[in-house]
């Protein structure tokens, strides 16, 4: 097959999960490969479009900094200019990619040269209207360029504010389908220009006029408006130009834009209308009546975005454009469209939301909450009553709306309406009762929830509901979790939790009244769930529950069967009973039950648990008992976990047993900076005996006979929280750090365990031991598994840690008290050997630099302190030795000549030279350097 196939797979793998894909390579190298392939003349357009897509979708992953972004943009630009004229689609895609890269890596915001060049090129492209000579296909390029400019103007408002005249002329000249692109670009530029002016304090007629006649460069200075430019409906105060400005020209421009709006696609028309509405709102000299001529067309439209733009207009201009009659009419249209048989469900749902947030001319409140416009009466909304034939979303949406309608309605009307809604709920429950599907069950409970949140006060109805639900439960015990969920949610969200208690009491009663035949193992587990929940209610007496449990255990073979799950579910009920405030009244019964289980239940674990509860019950006061049971740092999950019910019988438990994954960084490793001198080798204890030895080189070399000698570099880090971490992670425990290396130059790093990290405490220190095979710089990819306070386990990646070349340096591994002379002896020996080409890989090199403000001595003290062998300031000669595990040496002889410093370099591994060179370049910084290899 062709070469494209692996690319296909690689790119779809990257797009599906960039993080997983980049675990096996770096973004740098992947980007380099992509750019390289883009320059490959043999690759076809289709492949190149695919390649560009990675930059189109994830520019910030591939270009993590603005410098990389800039380089990439330059690369793409050169690719762009080499793409043949006919490859329109590819050209358009590259155009979009460059725009993406430039905006997303902040090249635009920081006003880089590349961004400037790119803007110029885009503007030239849209000005080059002679492209018809190349056929219509070239139009796509201009359309794309317009959209790129529009996006750049959106991200940097005001950029085009001095080019409005040019843009206007372009818009006027264009008669092809492209005029939409020019029109939208102009409208956006105009709006932003007006907005910038409106923020200014005093605006003269001249300034105002000059924005329309602008034909200059890009206005970079305006970027202070930044991205905070919200649409005006989101602003507390709309910026306004002073009244009295001469708006004649602007008015005629606005009119012509509106007249031509009809030529735009509906989506673009709606966008244009919004821009123009904002302009009118900011310019007091323009009257909203400008839009009057468009209103009828808009009122009648079948297009959702145009209708939405009309509502925006209504919201902005209220009664200065819409009379009370208009308002009434618009609302009626909305109610009509919200149930129009020919519209799509999502559109109708949206229109219903629009009714609940209808911009009234005289709103009673403006809280942003759902509220019913005064004009929506039960009669008007009658056609929106929910029915069992509606799809779930429509039904729930209508139910919610109608609940609000009848809540507000006059008494007589309201009763009728509420009765209808109640009948509807009953009809839903009937379907559930007739074995409706899971979707019907879920929808019905959601409907119940909506109804109850509005009408739980209507006692007669809410009691009827309880009867009905209990009745249904006796036939369908599988509804237990739905019923528990309903009771929980209603209790949480209503001030008055009485309804839930009544429901639970009813459910307890219906379980008690069930014929024994219905208490099969399968149903029993549902009943136990209900009873467990019922046991949490202090207002419900629990004696019956205990009798029932005892009765079931005695009169069935459950105890002999010894099913752990059933036993555990029974104990879960008991556990909640232990906490019950009326425990004194059922003390004996509960004790009997627990004792019975501990003796008869044929499962050791269950027996033990029951005995444990029995002990707790009989030995502790209720206060102590509840205190113990509630223990756990914040109640919740830890509580459930610490005692019974350990197995996955609830989802909460399941969440405790899984390791959650967070894509955000939680922890990080920060290098501990230390003086090089402290970093002396740990391998230098047994030394004094050798003090008298003569040949220090032999002594030195013999040390390496010991396996593992000097083979490790220890790096010290602080394990801390990242800056903006979730408070959930403020205290984490039992952290296990796992290290992955991106190359094979190092031995595997073993996991490190840290007991805890608290955000407000001193960070623990972590020592990472690296064993190089080759002492090259590397990157550590680190992940952590840890536990949060609520008992959940998490997996999270840490930011990568780079290990630079100098971090691998060790002082020469000689005993601590070795004399300077002896050290020098070793140094000279190694130097001579290297100079004479022994071993084979030895090499010598020279590096020169000019000393700047900083004296050579300072430089040496700062960088070579721990590695100095001899220090002869008077002779202007220094000898430096870096030891790099497993057994490499880099030796420096530094001499100061008249105008430059010479660094002679010797090493027994020439492959290290590039690293040495860049290291020296780095520390000597910006000084002129020359290098000669020897």
């Amino acid at each position, binding site marked *: 097959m062709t070469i494209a196939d692996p690319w296909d797979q690689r790119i779809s793998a990257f797009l599906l999960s960039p993080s997983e894909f980049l675990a096996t390579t770096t973004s740098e190298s992947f980007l380099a490969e992509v750019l390289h392939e883009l320059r490959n003349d043999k690759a076809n357009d289709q492949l190149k479009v695919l390649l560009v897509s990675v930059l189109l979708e994830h520019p910030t992953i591939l270009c993590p900094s603005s410098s990389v972004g800039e380089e990439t943009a330059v690369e793409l630009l050169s690719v762009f200019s080499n793409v043949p004229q006919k490859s329109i689609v590819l050209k358009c895609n590259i155009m979009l990619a460059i725009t993406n890269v430039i905006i997303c890596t902040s090249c635009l915001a920081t006003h880089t040269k590349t961004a400037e060049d790119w803007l110029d090129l885009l503007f030239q492209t849209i000005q080059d209207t002679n492209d018809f000579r190349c056929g219509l296909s070239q139009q796509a390029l201009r359309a794309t360029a317009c959209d790129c400019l529009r996006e750049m103007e959106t991200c940097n408002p005001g950029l085009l504010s001095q080019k409005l005249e040019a843009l206007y002329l372009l818009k006027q000249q264009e008669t092809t389908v492209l005029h*939409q692109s020019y029109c939208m670009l102009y409208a956006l530029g105009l709006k932003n220009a007006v907005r910038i002016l409106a923020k200014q304090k005093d605006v003269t007629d001249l300034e105002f006029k000059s924005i329309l006649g602008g034909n200059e460069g890009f206005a970079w200075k305006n970027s202070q408006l930044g991205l905070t430019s919200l649409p005006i409906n989101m602003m507390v105060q709309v910026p306004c130009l002073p009244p009295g400005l001469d708006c004649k020209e602007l008015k005629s421009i606005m009119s012509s834009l509106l007249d031509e709006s009809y030529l735009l696609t509906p989506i673009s028309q709606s966008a244009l209308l919004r821009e123009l509405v904002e302009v009118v709102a900011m310019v007091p000299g323009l009257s909203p009546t400008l839009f009057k001529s468009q209103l009828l067309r808009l009122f009648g439209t079948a297009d959702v975005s145009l209708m939405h733009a009309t509502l925006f207009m209504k919201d902005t201009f209220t009664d200065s454009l819409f009379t009370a009659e208009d308002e009434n009419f618009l609302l009626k249209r909305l109610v009509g469209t919200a149930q129009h048989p020919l519209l799509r469900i999502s559109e109708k749902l949206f229109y219903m939301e629009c009714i609940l947030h209808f911009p009234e001319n005289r709103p009673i409140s403006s809280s942003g909450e759902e509220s019913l416009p005064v004009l929506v009466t039960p009669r008007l909304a009658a056609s929106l009553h929910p029915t069992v034939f509606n799809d779930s979303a429509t039904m729930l949406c209508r139910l919610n709306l109608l609940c609000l309608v009848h809540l507000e309605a006059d008494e007589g009307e309201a009763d009728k309406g509420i009765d209808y809604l109640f009948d509807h709920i009953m009809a839903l429950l009937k379907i559930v009762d007739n074995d409706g599907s899971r979707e019907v069950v879920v929808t019905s409970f959601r409907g119940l929830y909506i109804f109850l949140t509005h009408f739980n006060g209507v006692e007669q109805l809410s009691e009827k509901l309880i009867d009905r639900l209990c009745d249904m439960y006796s036939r369908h015990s599988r509804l237990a979790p739905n019923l528990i969920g309903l009771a929980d949610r209603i209790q949480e969200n209503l001030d008055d939790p009485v309804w839930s208690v009544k429901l639970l009491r009813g459910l307890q009663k219906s379980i008690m009244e069930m014929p024994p035949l219905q208490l099969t193992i399968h149903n029993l587990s549902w009943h136990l769930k209900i009873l467990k929940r019922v046991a949490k209610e202090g207002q419900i007496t629990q004696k019956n529950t205990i009798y029932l449990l005892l009765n079931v255990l005695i009169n069935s073979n459950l105890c002999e069967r010894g099913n752990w799950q059933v036993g555990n579910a029974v104990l879960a009920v008991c556990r909640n009973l232990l906490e019950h405030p009326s425990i004194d009244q059922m003390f004996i019964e509960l004790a009997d039950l627990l004792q019975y289980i501990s003796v008869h239940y044929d499962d050791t674990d269950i027996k033990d648990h029951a005995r444990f509860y029995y002990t707790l019950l009989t030995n502790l006061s209720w206060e102590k008992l509840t205190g113990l049971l509630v223990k756990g740092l914040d109640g919740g999950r830890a509580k459930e976990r610490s005692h019974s019910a350990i197995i996955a019988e609830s989802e909460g438990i399941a969440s405790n047993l899984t390791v959650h994954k967070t894509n955000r960084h939680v922890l990080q490793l920060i290098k501990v900076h230390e003086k090089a001198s402290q970093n002396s080798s740990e391998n230098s204890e047994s030394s004094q005996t050798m003090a008298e030895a003569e040949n220090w080189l032999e002594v030195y070399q013999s040390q390496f006979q010991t396996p593992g000698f000097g083979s490790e570099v220890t790096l010290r880090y602080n394990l801390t929280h990242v800056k903006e971490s979730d408070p959930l992670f403020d205290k984490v425990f039992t952290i296990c750090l796992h290290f992955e290396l991106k190359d094979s130059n190092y031995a595997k790093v073993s996991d490190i365990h840290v007991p805890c990290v608290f955000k407000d405490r001193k960070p623990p220190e972590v020592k990472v031991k690296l064993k190089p095979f080759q002492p090259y710089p590397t990157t550590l990819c680190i992940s952590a598994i840890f536990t949060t306070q609520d008992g959940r386990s998490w997996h999270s990646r840490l930011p990568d840690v780079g290990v630079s070349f100098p971090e691998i340096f060790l002082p020469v591994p000689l005993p601590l008290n070795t004399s300077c002379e002896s050290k020098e002896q070793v140094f000279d020996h190694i130097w001579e050997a290297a100079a004479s080409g022994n071993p084979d890989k030895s090499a010598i090199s020279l590096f020169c630099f000019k000393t700047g403000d900083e004296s050579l001595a300072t430089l040496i003290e700062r960088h070579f302190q721990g590695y100095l062998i001899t220090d002869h300031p008077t002779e202007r000669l220094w000898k430096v030795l870096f030891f790099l595990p497993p057994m490499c040496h880099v030796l420096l002889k530094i001499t100061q000549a008249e105008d430059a410093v010479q660094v002679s370099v010797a090493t027994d591994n020439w492959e290290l030279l590039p690293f040495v060179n860049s290291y020296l370049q780095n520390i000597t910084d910006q000084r002129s350097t020359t290098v000669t290899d020897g």
Partner: protein
Amino acid sequence: MSIRALWVVSHEKGESGKVRFSRRFPTVEFRAKSLAGTQYVAIPEDCVIPQLLLTELGLVDADKPYVEVRDDCARQHRSPAVELRFNGPGGRTLWPVLTVTQGPLILACLPLVEAPPGPRPPLPSLASVSQGLALLSGLQDFLCGPGGKPEPDVQASRLAALPSVLLQVCPLGRPLDTPPPAGLVPAAVAPSPGGAQKQPAWKAGVHRGRAVVSVALTEKVRSMQYGKSSQQDIWDVYGMVMCKCEVEGVLPNVTVTLTLPPNGSPLQDILVHPCVTSLDASILTACSVDENDGSAFSGPYKFPFSPPLELFRLCSYTSQVPVPPILGSYQLKAEENHLKVNVVLKLHESVKNSFEYCEAHIPFFNQNLMGNVEVKVSSGQLEVSKEKNLLVWVLGQKFPKSREATLEGTVYFSGTVAGPTDPLCTGLTAYIKLYFRVPDLTLSGCSVDQHSVQVYSSAKPRIVTTRELVSSEYYIWNSTGAAPVSSGLVVL
């Protein structure tokens, strides 16, 4: 007015979802980040999107009766936008995700929230929401076509074409247009001639060739008939005018006029295509949610427009007609293991007795499979589908002269195998569903006269107008059983 990302996810029963197409818009994401500040929630990687979406839509773990994250009753699925929750309980959420489900395909997009960080703004305050909805609708039409169920290979090729479609309609996350609906792209198109007249953005070129204007008026009638004094029968009619105009010129003017008979009830809830250039205020006044005053405008309804190249829906309306076209009565009597059935259908005298087809489907749910069927019809034929527990009464092209047809007899359920079930139709709750089409008829009386179609262009076009009446959700409930209420209109 932008969207942050777009997905097409497929979901086959019993399988986990799969991303079939996705597109992120990084410059919009860049804006989202800066608008939301510390509240910014990044979009998760594509590999986790299907699971999140399917959970929200209630489509995961079909075998489990209750899953809290999926089924919690306080999570209200009553908005076109859902929120995706990740990182377990207490985690962050991505909102508002707009979704459209068609068969196994789920289309979703995430509009940009252009609002200051803080509490969630109401959905209607966000401009990008309606644009997102429009884009999704367009994508739905593009991917699924008019039939809604394309062959897998057709769909795959349409999915493969999405990148180039988006290059045109949404290159940088800002919708510029909706994708062209599949299968509706016209053939004979020439490039725009250029000149002073601006070419509309919704029209790629101009028509070349014979000039033809076709206007097709379709009315659909829905009905729920209960045959009881306690439950009022309801029916309604809605119509749409589909146009295809093959006319030369950049912006040719066409006017279509709908007329009603002298005492016809006014057309209501009129919605028009954006290509309609102007509307008379009186056309829009009639509204179905309003009480009707007799003085309402009743035509003629003039729609001046400049047509796009493709087939489009010029306008739609609803209408309240005084009687349903077919009035039915359905009576069931249960006796031991059989049901006595009695059906009478009456065609109203105002309706032309000339059908393209007319069928009554009589299903029996929650029974054992049928055995003997001893049923007689006064007109047409009866087809029995025993494995489906369904009687199909084919009335054919005409009702008898009396305009009345009856079906009478007994259906035995002697089998031991259970037939189809339905949670709604238990006991004696049962219905008949009618399917019919009458060419050249509308119930509202609305019509488009061939001579009233005006085209201002050099060549005189051929004008074709048609009209038809089609049934839609036409139910007749058994009057001896309880029937579900189907509309709140009758309550008040």
